[in-house]
């Protein structure tokens, strides 16, 4: 209950601001200037969600369930594109692949003159797909790694082809995880600002950005529309989810590994090619900028890139990411538990609020916290301290953990707990020895998503961080503001590196060893 109330904060703030500013919602909503960008947002959201679902699921299967060469490395690399702040990722991608970019310079001698134009819908769709498929990949990979092999073995023995097994056995068992991830991709795509702005694709978020200062009634009205879209989608998804059969997971052995046969090497080329675009390409471009900066004449101002200066921000980014992930899990797990086990209506509403928090712009989340905290006795002492910043992150990104947790909780067979109870195990002991271990992969996947998102979050970080709490994200922003490509590139590379380390240590290694 209390948890749900806290999550109500940002949405209530948006509603209140609408009332206070006297926004005429009707005229905001049915204005052609709103409907067009709204349509654009939805179109982009649906397109990105579909492509990310396909890619995320395919990649999860091929890295977790096949004998793809080098799959442990692919497993580590696959979630990482999520960590690029979308503006940085899009900039690097443009610099690398757009017309006049590095790739074209390299290809020109080969007779290839111009690369396709990346601006508009096509570019936004491509960039967002490349950077958001991990929302699907991580939960699905966690799910697939914990599926019992017995059903698949039976299906194989009965003569089904590997593809048919995937379609009739693996896919249905992963459906809830795929839906969970796809929902997050959709919400991310409609709330993204950095990439769509850079690629010149006019969406709702761009309008909110343009209006936020001087047309606040409209900006708040549009934020409400964005939150409303998120609400509709999450309610629809839950209704669908309720109709689906719950698939409980009790795993006893390693998951079945499917030999790819002659498809092994083509698969490597496809996976490598894809990650090459989503991760390696941007990293190479960033590396090029950083190197150029470090080797350039050191007398030019603002370019003396110093790795040592990044140590503090790196540690603070890791600290914020880890704490937020842990707090988000602790907050969200009881919520997921009540929804899944007791079908509680109150918890369902709370869950919708958590999801809305993900669709609202970061600035709005930050301002809502300022609004609630700055004059509230006791809490105001936390104003502009780390705890409040963590709360903002949890409000913003909690959705990434709730869906993963729900999927995880659903996977725990109730009869296991009952069996343990008849054997005399107490509530706490049952929880820690039966339920937690079974939920672990799903929970870790959710925590991993929250962690990666937190480390790249910018608007709320800038407004709510304790003064002097520089993180890698704020360093990247600062470098971008003053046009220091090299420093920004170096900080971005550090962000990718620390994310890789943490994703490995906290998420992937544990899912594997589980």
């Amino acid at each position, binding site marked *: 209950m209390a948890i749900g109330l806290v999550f109500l904060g940002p949405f209530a703030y948006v509603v209140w601001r609408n009332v206070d500013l006297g926004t005429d919602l009707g005229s905001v909503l049915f204005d052609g200037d709103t409907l067009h960008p709204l349509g654009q947002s939805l179109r982009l959201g649906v397109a990105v969600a579909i492509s990310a679902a396909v890619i995320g699921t395919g990649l999860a299967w091929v890295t977790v369930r096949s004998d793809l060469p080098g799959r442990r490395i692919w497993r580590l690399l696959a979630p990482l594109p999520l960590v690029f702040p979308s503006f940085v990722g899009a900039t690097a991608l443009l610099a690398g692949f757009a017309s006049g970019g590095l790739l074209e310079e390299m290809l020109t001698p080969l007779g290839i003159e111009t690369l396709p134009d990346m601006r508009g819908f096509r570019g936004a769709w491509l960039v967002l797909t490349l950077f958001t498929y991990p929302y699907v990949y991580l939960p699905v990979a966690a799910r697939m790694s914990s599926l019992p092999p017995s059903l698949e073995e039976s299906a194989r023995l009965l003569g089904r082809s590997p593809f048919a097994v995937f379609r009739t056995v693996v896919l249905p068992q992963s459906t809830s995880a795929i839906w969970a991830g796809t929902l997050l991709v959709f919400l991310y795509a409609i709330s993204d600002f950095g990439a769509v702005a850079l690629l010149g694709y006019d969406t709702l978020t761009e309008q909110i950005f343009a209006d936020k*200062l001087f047309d606040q009634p409209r900006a708040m009205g549009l934020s409400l529309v964005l939150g409303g879209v998120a609400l509709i989608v999450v309610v629809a998804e839950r209704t669908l989810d309720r109709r689906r059969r719950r698939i409980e997971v009790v795993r006893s052995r390693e998951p079945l590994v499917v030999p790819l046969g002659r498809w092994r090497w083509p698969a490597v080329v496809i996976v490598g090619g894809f990650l090459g675009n989503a991760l390696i390409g941007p990293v190479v471009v960033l590396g090029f900028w950083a190197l*150029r900066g470090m080797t350039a004449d050191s007398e030019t101002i603002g370019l003396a890139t110093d790795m040592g200066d990044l140590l503090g921000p790196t540690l603070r980014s890791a600290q914020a990411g880890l704490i937020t992930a842990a707090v988000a899990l602790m907050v969200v797990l009881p919520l997921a538990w009540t929804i899944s086990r007791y079908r509680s209506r109150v918890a369902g509403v709370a869950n919708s609020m958590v999801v809305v928090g993900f669709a609202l712009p970061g600035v709005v989340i930050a301002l809502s916290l300022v609004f609630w905290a*700055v004059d509230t006795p006791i809490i105001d002492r936390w104003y502009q301290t*780390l705890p409040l910043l963590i709360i903002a992150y949890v409000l913003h990104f909690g959705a990434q953990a709730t869906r993963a947790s729900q999927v995880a909780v659903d996977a725990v067979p109730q009869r296991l707990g009952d069996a343990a109870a008849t054997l005399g195990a107490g509530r706490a002991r049952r929880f820690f020895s039966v339920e937690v271990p079974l939920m672990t992969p799903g929970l870790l996947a959710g925590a991993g998503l929250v962690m990666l998102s937190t480390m790249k979050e910018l608007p709320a970080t800038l407004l709510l961080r304790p003064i002097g709490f520089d993180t890698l994200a704020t360093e990247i922003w*600062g470098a971008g503001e003053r046009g*220091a490509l090299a420093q920004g590139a170096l900080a971005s590379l550090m962000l990718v590196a620390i994310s890789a380390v943490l994703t490995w240590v906290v998420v992937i290694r544990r899912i594997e060893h589980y």
Partner: protein
Amino acid sequence: MLGNLDINYHRLMTSSLHRRILTSLLILLALVATACGGDSESSDAVDDTDSITVYSGRDEELIQPLIDAFTESTGIDVAVRYADSAELALLIQTEGDSSPADVFISQSPGALGLLAGEDRLAELPADLLGLVDEGFAASDGTWVGLSGRVRVVVYNSELVDVSDLPSSVLELTDSEYEGRVAVAPTNGSFQDFVTAMRSELGDDDTLAWLEGLAANGAPNYPKNSAIVEAVGRGEVEMGLVNHYYNLRALEADPSVVSVNHFLPAGDVGSLVIVTGGAVLSSSDGAGAAEELLRFLLSADAQGTFAAETQEYPLLDGVGAPAGLPPLSGYAADTIDYDVLGDGLTGTIELIRESGIEQ
């Protein structure tokens, strides 16, 4: 299934899960403890009367050295929150009288105008306002300009012939420039520039000009630096930006082919956009706050702006950055910045109405 269950139990009971959960919790506790440790230090400093808090929309690298010099010469500690100017204005607006900030430094006069309109800014003393030319401070005395940058046309020297360059922004609606000139319609500087145009030409002509650009299919970008990068790699031939982004791009890569074209002084396109400083009306350290603004307007500090960040100093008698045209010509027809503040709502409506946002 029962077999599975047995195996599972066996595995779980013998696993070191409890130990692992315990270590994870301990690590988390340590993280939280260090986090809280950091907090208490900073909150001690706030109680000190000899300290002020600045919200700065200006980048840390550009202004922190000057603030350090200020602390060294006056003994006043300065805590600075760096973020986007517009978002800091929203923050101050939301914080209201409880705002911890004493000083607001904004890259955009528009954000200052918004706060002045809501009585969040205190009136500055006349001698402080008098340090800069009349046009570079608010006429109601709520803020003073600290440095300036000039609107220019950046172009790709490999794609654009010098004779093709416009001698006025008004020419950009000619069919000759179709699809060739990038703009950033949601960017604060572009909005300030359009507001200035409104005060000079009136709304009808400004709208006609914007519609002309829209009809010409001017490509959109989110901000100045993105335009400069796009021009550099030849994605678009020209763009309307502030002068110093291209100077930065040149520092990063001397081989880049983007070049600044300064429009003639007196053209409506050659607006000077100031970075302004203000003291908040809710500040309890107004004296120290004013002292900081005065320091930033000292000859030394102004010289640093010119030398280090290639911005135009606003204090009389301090020269323009090396290699750039003098400011005097551009200051000739100064804009009433209050119009910029109050008038931005109208500007945004005008920009939207023109259909230039794509």
